[in-house]
């Protein structure tokens, strides 16, 4: 059965991916985010600009392309997201 992710779940996946890459490589590239968050380039670009404007991600210049690092606000949001994702799944629901 096909399961669709809600927008907040996609944002959660992007932040989790950016968080992992920030720890390992000082930020995630667009290609890494597309692969790990399983999302199209067009949709990712729009969500990334929203997340950067809200201060959840930081856009940093790399050699050839931009990289995205998770900010402190992003880390706080991610921790709340994980907590309440568990809470809603306890009610048999998706956040």
């Amino acid at each position, binding site marked *: 059965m096909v399961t669709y992710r809600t927008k907040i779940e996609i944002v959660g996946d992007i932040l989790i991916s950016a968080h992992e890459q920030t720890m390992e490589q000082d930020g995630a590239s667009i290609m890494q985010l597309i692969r790990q968050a399983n999302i199209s380039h067009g949709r990712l670009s729009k969500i990334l600009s929203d997340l950067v404007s809200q201060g959840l991600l930081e856009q940093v210049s790399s050699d050839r392309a931009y990289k995205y690092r998770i900010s402190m606000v992003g880390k706080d*949001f991610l921790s709340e997201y994980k907590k309440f994702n568990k*809470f809603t799944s306890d009610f048999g629901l998706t956040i």
Partner: protein
Amino acid sequence: MELFLEGILNLIGFVVGLIIGTFSYIGYKNTGSPVLFRLTIAFFAIGIGFGIIWSAYIINELVFDTEKINRGIQALGLGIQTIGYFFIAFSHTIKSFFPKSRYFRSVGILPLFFLSAMNIEHIIRSFSFILLVYGSIETIVSYIEGRQKGALAVGVGLGLLAFGEFIAWYSLVFPESILYSISIVIKISGLLSLFIPVSKIPLRKIKFDDLDGE
């Protein structure tokens, strides 16, 4: 005995409803999730519904010195609780609640005319029962899929509330029996079971983040 248990049930329902409602609201403020918003409405409604009945009992005992509360207030409290149960069921999307065929829809309205002479309280209770059974089945199905113990606790909790409601109907047939007290004890167990997942979540880092203002 029944009055004492009824008081405990309504107080626990009031407290559990408000705590889970507040927790859901904090989650909604911090993440913006519409599911958490629906849970907020659901549990605040359940808490307020129990609270209205509880305060009616307290006021009656302290001010009017009677044990029976006004049936209208009782129906109001139960009605608000039913709204809460509706939002829990609605969060699971009520797929097959209303039949699609026009014939069945028209036939489905008929019982409302037959039941119109009955006490409105029992009609509300029957709606609650249907919604609770639906919510319980959906939650247990998601437990079977995900094997999360919290989902099992919530599914069992909603199921116990529904079963308590069912036993309470039976007590109408045998009014002097112990059935009504048993139904209240079952409902209290259901409410405590609903509270289990919330009690396990650490409350240290909860705060309100106005992300739009950043």
